């Protein structure tokens, strides 16, 4: 299928946006997990 240059640049922009959002969500989850691990350690020591 032939694609116009416009649609190609749109797809590239969409790809970039999706990956950036996914990376942000993953970073938030990892940060949450780190905080949770810290809190669990404190709770288990108490």
């Amino acid at each position, binding site marked *: 299928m032939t694609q116009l240059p416009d649609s190609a640049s749109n797809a590239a922009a969409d*790809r970039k946006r999706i990956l950036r959002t996914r990376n942000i969500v993953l970073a938030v989850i990892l940060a949450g997990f780190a905080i949770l691990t810290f809190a669990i350690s404190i709770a288990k020591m108490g």
Partner: protein
Amino acid sequence: MTATTQPLPAEWRDFFALTKPRVMSLVIFTGLCGLLAAPAHIHPVLGFTAILCIAMGAGGAAALNMWWEADIDAGMKRTANRPLPTGKMDRTSARDFGGALAAASVFLMGFAIGWLAAAILALSIFYYAVIYTIWLKPRTPQNIVIGGGAGAFPPLIGWVAATGDITLMPVILFAIIFFWTPPHFWALALFVQTDYAKVGIPMLPVVAGEAVTRRQIVVYAVLLLPLTLLPWMIPAQFGGFGAIYGVSAAVLSTLFLLLALRVGVRKRQGDADTMRPEKQLFGFSVLYLFALFAAMVADRWIVVQGIVP
């Protein structure tokens, strides 16, 4: 292959959709009730972690379910817009996501809470993803009964996370959801036309007919009444509940049985039938489970823990 012909990667919302968030809300509620109704104190952080692990385990099992059933989902109107049938995500990503989420939930539960709760969580994931989804769902019209077992694990896990051991009480909580599930889903199946027959899943109303399904609904509702009263009979020192739960369970289960009997004795009145009794039974069944488990928590916190003498 150039960037212009590559499919777009799945969005984070697609991964979230794999976890069946609506089902997860009931899982979280019953798991939390099991945790709060247990006769033991758990640190709030550990309690939160236990519920998080239950939710992650349920989400992982749901993702594995969607991975396995992608072809079936594509053939049914209700499920055709899920991430895999629509092509928003490839199957390998769904399988890896589900497997990773399930494994992470079990290990976090084991390290943070205890390995008994982790083992039951692992069993529940295996039960749903393998025994139910892969093995028995496509083979028997009793699939809803078997699937009910998977949904019955969360309060058991919540209770075990709080107390650290399995006693009769959490097993009764498991049994309550197990016996509640068939009338709940079969009431829905009577008035919602599904495409299960088209994709080869043997649902009871399709395989055995409406009359058998209505009889089975009554059977499970009859069994549920004495079962829900059992926690009232068990002494408080063994985790039993008091009068707040007992009276609530008696009223709720009697109403549930009456609505089930009304569904059990009637026949569909042609295509113009609005199926009002079946819809009422289904609607009440959701309220019933929430109210029953809320009554357990209220009873534990108000009477047994001595907030009100």
